[in-house]
């Protein structure tokens, strides 16, 4: 018996040590998160005001506000969503409802979406510049930036949409078929409404991704910080504004901090809303044991 005691206590020590290490790692990640957030909030909150949100930038962004930049950001986002939503959700419906998982077409689509999800955003920027801006002649414009973003959003919209549709119980489809409903009616009146929370979560995640994007927009939607007159004008998004202020404009740090605060607040709200939706949807999906 005497021999087993040291072995056991060694095990306990190892256990305690592992636990300590893991707690320290978790604490470090939390600390980094709080550090980043508090730096951004502390640096930006003094400069933030209503007039900062609506005024036009002056003196290359050192003074004035971010009014036109917010407008450009929203316009780029709207273009991206208008293009990506129908395409993404139709693809999701096809993958979930019409083709089997191992058909050639289905797996080809799924494979290329996977690849698309991994393409670095700077590569999307190069592609958008070559295809939308130059080949299709859109130039540096909100339209070409938005369409480039649409390509980036497709994978996330399709994967959340497909997961949402697949989570709808088969009983819905069987009952609809028993009632003689066509597949189209079933899809529009039964399956899509049932999958709505997941579609909405995907939409919010997509919006978050789009608002956060910088590299893909650098050489597609451009740097111009005036109020855009049309979709063919160049427009600077909030993320690019932060980049430009901190890298190319000396003395722009206060405005950059405030812009970063606006961006990060918007993103946190969007992401929290998306998490709420997914959590609610999973709670309904999982049958309590």
């Amino acid at each position, binding site marked *: 018996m005497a021999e087993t005691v040291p072995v056991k206590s060694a*095990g*306990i020590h*190892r*256990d305690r040590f*592992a*636990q300590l*290490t893991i*707690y320290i*790692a*978790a604490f*470090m*990640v*939390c600390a980094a*998160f709080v*550090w*980043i957030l508090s*730096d*951004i909030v502390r640096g930006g909150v003094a400069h933030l005001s209503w007039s900062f949100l609506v005024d036009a930038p002056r003196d290359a962004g050192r003074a004035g506000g971010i009014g036109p930049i917010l407008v450009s950001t929203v316009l780029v986002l709207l273009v991206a969503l208008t293009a990506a939503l129908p395409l*993404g959700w*139709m*693809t999701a*419906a*096809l993958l979930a409802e*019409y083709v089997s998982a191992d058909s050639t*077409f289905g797996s*080809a*689509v799924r494979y*290329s979406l*996977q690849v*698309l999800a*991994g*393409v*670095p*955003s*700077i*590569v*999307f*920027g*190069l*592609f958008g*510049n*070559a*295809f939308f801006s130059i080949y299709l002649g859109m130039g540096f414009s909100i339209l070409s930036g938005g369409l480039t973003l649409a390509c980036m959003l*497709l994978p996330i919209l399709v994967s959340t949409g497909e997961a949402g549709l697949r989570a709808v119980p088969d009983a819905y489809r069987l009952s609809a078929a028993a009632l003689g409903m066509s597949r189209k009616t079933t899809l529009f009146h039964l399956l899509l409404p049932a999958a709505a929370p997941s579609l909405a979560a995907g939409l919010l995640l997509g919006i978050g991704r789009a608002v*956060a994007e*910088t*590299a893909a927009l*650098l*050489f597609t939607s451009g740097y111009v910080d005036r109020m855009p007159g049309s979709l063919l004008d160049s427009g600077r998004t909030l993320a*690019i504004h*932060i980049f430009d202020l*901190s*890298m190319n404009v000396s003395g722009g*740090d206060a405005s950059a901090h405030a812009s*970063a605060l606006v*961006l*990060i607040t918007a*993103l946190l709200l969007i*992401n929290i809303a998306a*998490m709420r939706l997914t959590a609610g949807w999973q709670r309904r999906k999982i049958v309590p044991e």
Partner: protein
Amino acid sequence: MLWLLCGAAGIAAALVLLILLFLSAESWPALRHISIGRFLNDPSWNPGESMYKLTPMLSGTLYAAGGALLLAIPLGIASALFIAYYASPRGAGIYRHLIELLAGIPSVVYGFWGLTTLVPLINQLHPPGASLLAGILVLTLMILPTIALTAHASLLSVPPDYLRGAAALGISRWGMIRGVALPAAKTGIAAGIILAAGRAIGETMAVLMVTGNVVQHAASLFDPIRTLAANIALEMPYAMGDHRAALFVSGLTLMLLVMMLWSVAAQLGRNRDG
């Protein structure tokens, strides 16, 4: 109706081909004029005098991504273990949300934070501050969520019977994790690490803002470097002719590198399912 859906899916699938096509078409002038060897053997990167040595950028990319992985893998796996086995249900939920929010912070904000907080700190330690180390630290924070969330997902998919069996044998918690849970989840964790490597290699803005962007092979952690992606973002606005084509070549290289990594990850995922 079905045709409409197929059309939409076809467009989605064709996008990858379209991207590859346009990158190749734009790279073609460079690939025709400049032999592949010159991207490796030219004396320097100086497109004005048509010298196109990409190796310093390649080494910068690999150092930054490798360093970030070295830090993010233990932190990410520890985070996943914390959520799965150590934290109370409430604590685990909060911590998981925090990691998800960390994943949602835009790269330009990471870059800005690195530039205003990390770089001055590193500068006090060892000038100039904008360095490989700053890039590694920022990248670590950016890829940690990918590793933590995929590792957690694969820990969740470890059959509960394994864990109950381990508990019934009276194995300690760490023994159960090391002997049962981690081996059972290892392919999923590996796939997550590969995805994170892909992100680290392709990341542009944050790295561009904190690494100083000097084209050189880094001799120490405190040397400034320039990555392939940062090089594209820096020089695209004024690049013409062969220079522009050379940037597209580096973009194509990045895309192929990431596609390769993703194929490996997908393969791992498939083996785990099978």
